[in-house]
């Protein structure tokens, strides 16, 4: 190597040595990057959840609504005695931070609850209290899991538990529908008949 090339190489080495080992960005860019990446990833991973949840609730709600329509005549007399809102009201179903279940899911859920309100009112008092207490338990559980998802967004365990809890809630409502309206024993036009 010639002396000129040696000088040039030495200057380059010196310049490289003066460069910092790492460069901190002028501001913390990660939150903004994460905000763009995470929802896309999470949504992609959860894409199957919406159709599955919607299909489940629509199946249950569809069955219930058919039953409700068939029983509308006899239910109407009792329904008039109930508050307009019924006992079962639900907040929008969340799915972790910044996520909500599809509006059609919520609409079907509300409709199912409304259609069952009259029949739940006619359950034996003990069973009705147990049912309302347990539906509240399910709602508390889903709220708690949602809170945990705030800590651990995208956590697979929490997401599975939350989805199953929503399905459990629907399963309970569907069971009540079946127990109180889907058979002869539970169908009645007179609420006092259930006071046994």
């Amino acid at each position, binding site marked *: 190597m010639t002396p000129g090339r040696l000088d040039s190489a030495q200057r380059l080495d010196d310049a490289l040595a003066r460069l910092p080992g790492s460069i901190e960005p002028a501001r913390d860019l990660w939150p903004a990057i994460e905000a763009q990446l995470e929802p896309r990833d999470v949504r992609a991973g959860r894409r199957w959840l919406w159709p599955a949840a919607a299909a489940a609730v629509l199946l249950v709600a569809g069955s219930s609504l058919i039953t409700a329509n068939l029983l509308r005549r006899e239910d109407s007399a009792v329904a008039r005695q109930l508050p307009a809102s019924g006992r079962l009201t639900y907040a929008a179903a969340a799915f972790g931070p910044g996520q909500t279940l599809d509006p059609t899911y919520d609409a079907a859920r509300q409709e199912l609850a409304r259609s069952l309100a009259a029949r739940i009112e006619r*359950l*034996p008092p*003990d*069973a009705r209290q*147990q*049912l309302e*207490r*347990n539906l509240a*338990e*399910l709602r508390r*559980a889903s709220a*708690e*899991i949602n809170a*945990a998802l705030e*800590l*651990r967004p995208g*956590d697979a*365990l*929490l997401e*599975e*538990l939350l989805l*199953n*809890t929503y399905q*459990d809630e629907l*399963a*309970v409502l569907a*069971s*009540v529908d*079946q*127990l*109180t309206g889907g*058979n*002869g*024993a*539970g169908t*009645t*036009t*007179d609420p*006092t*008949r*259930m*006071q*046994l």
Partner: protein
Amino acid sequence: MTIRFYATPATKPTAWLPALALLVMVPAADAGTPINERAAADPTGKVEVSNTAGSVVVTTWPRNEVEVTGSLGTGAEGLEFSSVDKLTRVKVNLPERSSRVEGTSLIIKLPAGSSLAVNTVSADVSAKGVRGQQRLQSVSGDIHTEAAAEDVECKTVSGHVTVAGTGQRGLLTVTTVSGDATVTSVAGEVNGNTVSGNFTITMGDTSRSRLRSTSGDLGLKGHVAQDARLDFESISGDVRLDLQGPVGAEFEMSSFNGQIRNCFGPKATRTSEYAPGSELRFREGQGTARVRIKTLNGDISVCNK
């Protein structure tokens, strides 16, 4: 075809009554009116029972007949009993409007191969010896039955469920809201779902079990079959497995806030340095069984001691 119908004199005739030429009207039902009905039935037919309050006790006998005895409660409108082709129907009718109706006790004998469907509100249900399919439902009544090779489904809101197996493999599905469920000596597949009830499988040899609860405890005491698939999930209920005999299985346990206790040796590890959560995966023995347990707050315990 046999149709019997008890009715009070005050009952208004309805449009369908004249159409039933074989209808037999029996005098009014007074307090505690005895029930005594019997009809020929297909040995593998279906028996449907509906009784709002009181009790339903079902046993089997070696005859191709269905017999209904018991006592009709005060205030009940009547008992509908019919047997057409393969379907026998037993239904306690209540008046359209009445403030108080006493419970009716039904004692039913049927061929062992019959399938059985029972619906009640507060009446307890007990079935013994039925070998066909069973679908037993009650809002607040307790359900006791035996499971054989055919499918059994029990569903309640607050009633407790007890199912005794016969060692034959079948599908058992139990759903309660707050009622407890106890399943003993059942082989085959068990699916259980409860909100706050406790669910226990004792001395089972189940190949497939899936138990879920929100706040109720879940438990299994017994042998894990070589190819078993056991799946337990709870939000705040504890999950406890007391395993007997040699265990050959792959375990996968995870909990967000609960503790994991394992008597087989390996310890749970945290899933994150900064957030709650622990998990434990290990294999015990040579078996190919798989055990999967997940909770949010509930503790997990797996032992063979």
